[in-house]
C-alpha cells in the first residue's frame, strides 16, 4: 500500500468521525426534547394543521432538528468527493455540533423549565408555533418585504451605477451632482420618511423610494471612483484599436470599475435591509418589519423571533445570491487577489 493511499484512508476515517460528531449534536437535542418532560406551566400543547398533517410544537421542533441532521449528514457524504470539501467539513464539525447542543439547551431552558425572562425569551419550539399557527400570514408579509426590497434595490443599483458613470465621465456632471451626492449621501434614508409618505401616492412607493435613495449613494460614489481611476493608458490603447467614446465607456471604464461597483452593491445591500425593516416598522401595511411591530403590541415575542428568523434566512440568501453574481462577473480576478 502506498503512502498516499494510507493518508487518504486516514482522512476518510476522520470525515466519517466528523459526520457522526455533527449529527450527534442534533441527536442530543432531539433526545432532550423527546425525553425531558414539560416542567413549566402555561405552555399549551396544541396541535396545528400544517397542510395535510397535524403537528404540535415539539414535533415541529424535532422535525426541524431531523432536517438539519439529514442535511449535514448528506453534505458530509458529498464531501467524500473532494479533499478540499472534506477538510472544510471536518473543520466546521465542532461548530455544528455545538449548534445542536445549544438548540437542546435553549429548548430546555426556554420551554421546558422556562427560567429565561418571559415572555421575552421563548424557547425554539415556541417560536415555531408562530409558523404553525399563522405561517400563511408570515409568508405574505415576507413576500411584501421581498417585493419592496426587489423594487428598491434594483432601482438603486440602476440609478447608482448610471449616476456614478455620469459623474465619473463628465466633468460638468461631476461639478453639479457630486456635491449633492456627498451631502444627501450621509443622511440616513429613513430620515426622509415623513416626506416620502406624504409625497408618494402609496406607502409602498414611498418605501421603494427610501431604499432606492439608500442604495444609490454607496453605489454611485464607488462607481464614480472606479471610473475615475481607470488608467489613461487603457483608454489610449482602446482608442488606437478603434474604439468610439461610447465604446470606451462601456468596454473599458465600466469593466475596470466593476470590482468597485460590486463593493458598492454589497454595501448598499446591507443599507437596503436596514432601511427596508425600518420603513416597514414606521408605516407600511405589511412586511416583516410591520409583523414585528404588530406582534410586539400583543407581547407575542415568539412571533418577533419568528420574523427575525425569516429575515436571517432571507437576507443571507439574498447576500449569497449577490456573491454568486459577483464571483461570476469578476471571475477574471480569480487568483489575482487573495
Amino acid at each position, binding site marked *: 500500500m502506498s503512502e498516499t493511499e494510507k493518508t487518504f484512508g486516514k482522512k476518510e476515517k476522520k470525515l466519517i468521525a466528523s459526520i457522526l460528531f455533527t449529527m450527534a449534536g442534533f441527536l442530543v437535542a432531539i433526545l432532550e426534547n423527546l425525553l425531558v418532560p414539560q416542567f413549566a406551566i402555561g405552555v399549551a400543547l396544541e396541535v396545528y394543521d400544517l397542510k395535510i398533517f397535524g403537528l404540535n410544537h415539539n414535533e415541529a421542533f424535532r422535525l426541524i432538528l431531523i432536517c438539519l441532521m439529514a442535511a449535514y449528514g448528506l453534505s458530509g457524504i458529498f464531501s467524500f468527493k473532494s479533499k478540499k470539501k472534506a477538510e472544510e467539513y471536518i473543520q466546521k464539525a465542532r461548530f455544528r455540533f455545538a449548534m445542536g447542543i445549544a438548540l437542546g439547551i435553549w429548548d430546555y431552558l426556554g420551554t421546558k423549565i422556562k427560567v429565561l425572562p418571559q415572555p421575552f425569551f421563548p424557547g425554539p419550539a415556541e417560536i415555531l408555533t408562530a409558523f404553525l399557527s399563522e405561517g400563511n400570514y408570515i409568508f405574505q408579509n415576507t413576500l411584501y418585504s421581498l417585493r419592496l426590497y426587489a423594487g428598491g434595490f434594483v432601482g438603486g443599483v440602476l440609478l447608482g451605477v448610471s449616476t456614478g458613470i455620469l459623474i465619473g465621465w463628465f466633468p460638468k456632471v461631476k461639478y453639479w451632482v457630486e456635491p449633492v451626492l456627498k451631502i444627501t449621501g450621509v443622511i440616513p434614508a429613513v430620515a426622509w420618511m415623513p416626506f416620502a409618505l406624504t409625497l408618494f401616492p402609496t406607502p409602498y412607493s414611498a418605501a421603494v423610494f427610501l431604499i432606492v435613495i439608500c442604495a444609490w449613494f454607496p453605489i454611485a460614489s464607488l462607481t464614480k471612483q472606479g471610473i475615475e481611476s481607470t488608467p489613461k*493608458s487603457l483608454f489610449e490603447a482602446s482608442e*488606437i484599436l478603434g474604439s468610439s467614446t461610447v*465604446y470606451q465607456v462601456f468596454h*473599458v471604464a465600466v469593466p475596470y470599475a466593476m470590482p468597485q461597483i460590486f463593493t458598492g452593491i454589497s454595501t448598499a445591500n446591507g443599507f437596503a435591509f436596514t432601511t427596508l425593516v425600518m420603513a416597514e416598522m414606521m408605516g407600511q401595511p405589511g412586511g416583516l418589519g410591520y409583523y414585528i411591530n404588530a406582534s410586539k403590541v400583543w407581547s407575542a415575542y415568539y412571533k418577533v423571533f419568528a420574523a427575525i428568523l425569516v429575515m436571517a434566512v432571507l437576507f443571507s440568501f439574498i447576500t449569497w445570491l449577490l456573491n454568486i453574481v459577483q464571483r461570476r462577473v469578476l471571475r477574471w480576478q480569480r487568483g489575482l487577489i487573495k
Partner: protein
Amino acid sequence: MSEKRNVVLKMEHVGRTYRDEEKETEVLQSVDFSVRQGEFISIIGASGCGKTTLLRLIAGLDRPQKGRILLDGEEITKPSPKAGYIFQQGNLFQWLTVRQNIGFGLKAQHLYKEKKDKIDEYIRMVGLKGFEDVYPHQISGGMAQRVSIARSLICNPEILLLDEPMGALDSFTRADIQDKLLELKRENDITMILVTHDIDEAVYLSDRIVIMTPHPGKISEIVEVDLPKPRHRGSESFFELRRKFLERFEMATAQPQPEYII
C-alpha cells in the same frame, strides 16, 4: 536600402514643447525623418531625450506644436488603428481573456462578425495556442507582450510603433520576441518603429537606426545597418558592426565638456 519603396511616414520639422506653470521644456526640436514601406527602424538615445514623446506623436496620442506628421500622405490628428502602438508594459485589458483581448479591435470597429476567424490565425502567429482562454494575470510578461502585438496587428496597421516593449523581459524572452517580430514583419510586410535601449537588439532587427540626443531632443544621426538578412547574433560581422556602432553612438551622445571641469 537597395530597392526604394514609397514613403509611409513623413515627419516635417516636428517640434513639441511642454509648458507647466512658468517653465517651458523643449522636448523635441525640428525632427525631420521619413520611413519607407516595410522598413524596420530603431530609435535609441539617452533617457529623457524624447523617444516616447516622438512615438506618441506618430500614434496621434499627442499633437506636435510645430511641423506635421504624415501617414500615407495624410496628417495625423488623432489615434487610429492605422498606427498600432505597443506599450512598455503589456497594457492588456485584465478582464478579458487572451482571445478577447486580441479580438478587442475587431469588436470596437464592428468587424468582429466578418473577421473573427483571424483571431485564431493571430493566436497561432504569436505562438499562444493553448492560452486563448486564460486571463492576462495568468500569463508571463513575454506572453503578455505577444498578446499586445497580436492585438495591434489584427487591426491591420500601416505601421507598428513599439515603445521599449521588451524592457522588462529577460534576455531569452527578448530574443524570442525579436525573432517573432521579424517573422511577423516578413509575413505581413509591415513597417515598424522600435524604441530600445539595447544596441544588440537595434543592430539585430533594424534596417536603420536613429540616434537621438537630449536637451532638446533631436535626431543626431541615422545609421544604415547593412548586414545581410537573416542575421546571426553570434556572427563575426554582427560583432564587428556592433562595435563600430557603439563607437559612433558614444561619439554622438558625448556631452560637450564644460570648461570648468578639470
